[in-house]
């Protein structure tokens, strides 16, 4: 399940369904579970991943060529949710593949597959709100995003619609500069906590053990995604899992 507020930092990592291949996805997920990753995003690849950086854009492009799809994601989810009960699986997708699948049916199947949460970056809170009763009934948590430029009242609204946790976008933009975890970031986190008791998952720019240590005690979840996918791309899923394992061991206890 999702962590509780102020629980020790957990790592969320990532799989792009079909990247590098559907079979490899299964092995990679097993490796991540073995490495101690507590949450895994299963990303439905999409032709137009506007909220992703270039690493994930390219991974999506490859994944589509290797059979990545909504159905493949549900199939994989059924397998891995059963196989790794200690891991919480989150569906990550852009809205269109889900919309085309049929939202109601998708939510039911995702829930049945054992998926616990959902991150859909281009699905605004206003469009999610009507679906909350359905999602709550299915036990499928919408994990909404808050960004550094989200106004306070909107944070309030997003917090209200979110379940499980809130995804905190660490910085402006999907590509580029290094993220800073200093005072400004801490104020930002503090500001969000004013509106919610949900745990916070911090994403974008988490690429090193140093980043993880910086987040320890500040957030409950660190989304370690692009860097992992780059390892996977360049060195294979096994090496990537080993690197993930050693990095998790490097985290200082708080």
């Amino acid at each position, binding site marked *: 399940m999702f962590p509780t507020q102020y629980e020790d930092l957990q790592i969320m990592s990532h799989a792009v369904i079909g990247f590098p291949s559907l079979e490899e996805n299964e092995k990679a997920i097993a490796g991540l579970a073995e490495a101690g990753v507590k949450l895994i995003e299963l990303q439905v690849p*999409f*032709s*137009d*991943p*506007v*909220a*992703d*950086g*270039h690493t994930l*854009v*390219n991974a999506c*492009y490859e994944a*589509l060529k290797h059979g990545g*799809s*909504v*159905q493949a994601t549900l199939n994989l989810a059924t397998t891995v949710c059963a196989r790794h009960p200690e891991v919480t699986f989150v569906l990550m997708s*852009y*809205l*269109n*593949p*889900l*919309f*085309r*699948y049929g939202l109601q049916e998708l939510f039911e199947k995702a829930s049945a597959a054992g998926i616990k949460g959902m991150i859909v*970056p*281009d*699905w*605004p809170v206003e*469009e999610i709100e009507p679906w909350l009763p359905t999602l709550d009934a299915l036990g499928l948590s919408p994990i*909404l*995003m*808050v*960004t*550094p*430029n*989200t*106004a306070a009242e*909107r944070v309030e609204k*997003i917090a209200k619609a979110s379940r499980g946790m809130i995804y905190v*976008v660490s910085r*402006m*933009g*999907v*590509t*580029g500069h290094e993220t800073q975890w200093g005072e400004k970031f801490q104020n930002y986190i503090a500001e969000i906590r004013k509106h919610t008791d949900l745990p916070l998952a911090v994403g974008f720019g988490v690429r090193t053990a140093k980043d993880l240590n910086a987040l320890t005690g500040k957030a409950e979840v660190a989304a370690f995604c692009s860097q992992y996918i780059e390892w996977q791309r360049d060195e294979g899923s096994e090496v990537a899992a080993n690197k993930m394992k050693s990095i998790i061991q490097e985290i200082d206890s708080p």
Partner: protein
Amino acid sequence: MIRSENGYFGEFGGRFVPEILLPALTELEDLFFGLRDDPAFWQEFVTLCQEFSGRPTPLTPLRRLSKQLGGAQIWLKREDLNHSGAHKVNNVLGQGLLVQRMGKQRVIAETGAGQHGLATAIMAARLGLEATIYMGAEDIERQYSNVFWMRQLGSDVVGVTTGAQTLKEALDEALRDWAASVETTHYVLGTACGPAPFPELVSYFQSIISDEIKEQSMRQMGCLPDEIVACVGGGSNAMGAFGAFLEISEVNLVGVEAGGISLEDGKHSIRLSQNTGETGIAQGYKTLFLQNDDGQLGDTHSIAAGLDYVGVSPILAHLSQQGRVIPESATDNEVTEAFSLLMKTEGIIPALESAHGLAGGFKRAKQMKPDQNVVINLSGRGDKDIFTVARAFPQREWTEFLQREAVRSTEALAQKRGH
């Protein structure tokens, strides 16, 4: 002009963007809603278009061609005479006024044919703004002359090499840039697509076209036209040409999409007709997209880079569903024929995009009577298409010229490096 209900036109439209982009869209929407009913703002816009871009553009009667075709009287709305050579500049100048009011110092844009990029580069130069233009690598190849000029104008042109390397990918990339720069940067969206308020905002500025058509046709024909025809890429020139006539049901409104090579997937860009497009949500809005069953956006083809787009204005999707706008299409071959016919009979060189409107409009005019009037929106001029047209109508001298020019250009480069 049509107004959205909360960003929607019937079932289409909306604002499906990453949270990070929301404040900028809201800021823009608030600004726009505050200004659009202010006659002084509209006047400021009209004056800018007049003084910088030469508006009003004329409504040109095609006397010889109409006679030759034997049907309705055909008139061209001459957006090709705009500064920068296409209607795109209307919208861009309008957004320029908004940028000044927001006090932002940088603009970004996506571009397909390069016309919108060129218009943005021009506006940025004139207002002293920084500009970055995203353009699919494939489109850069098709429209390098526009790229050349954008760079000379001081803009940074970034080639996008993901996916099919055309307009869709350029738009994605522009959105990514915007996510990172939204506080200092305005995204000059180039067509009546994208998240609210863009479809409405772009259509608002472009409606200067139909305002003029209305007044000019009363003056020149003595009545309103029976039909208005425009090509449809994203839909901005069509919405511009249709805008003032939406409530006048006697005036037929016809949108011509790119029929490309065939109706096979990836060989055309028809979204409104023939059940090719399906409702989807992507690139920030809901509309008819070319997509597969898994909701992946499809590949498109058109001889005209500016029509080679996977989505379409949510306003046009709605109006077409309502039956108010009649969807048509024209194939690459029909387009080059219409291109040649206009050129040889009336001495006007159309953009290949606009030649779709011609092909569709000529076909319809032939079925009509000589006392009827068809206005075709000539959205742009064809100079930019010289390389594409030269491939469609090969001339030996052109090939030889290019070979010599490539050598000269290499020499000029070597000399520059030598300095």
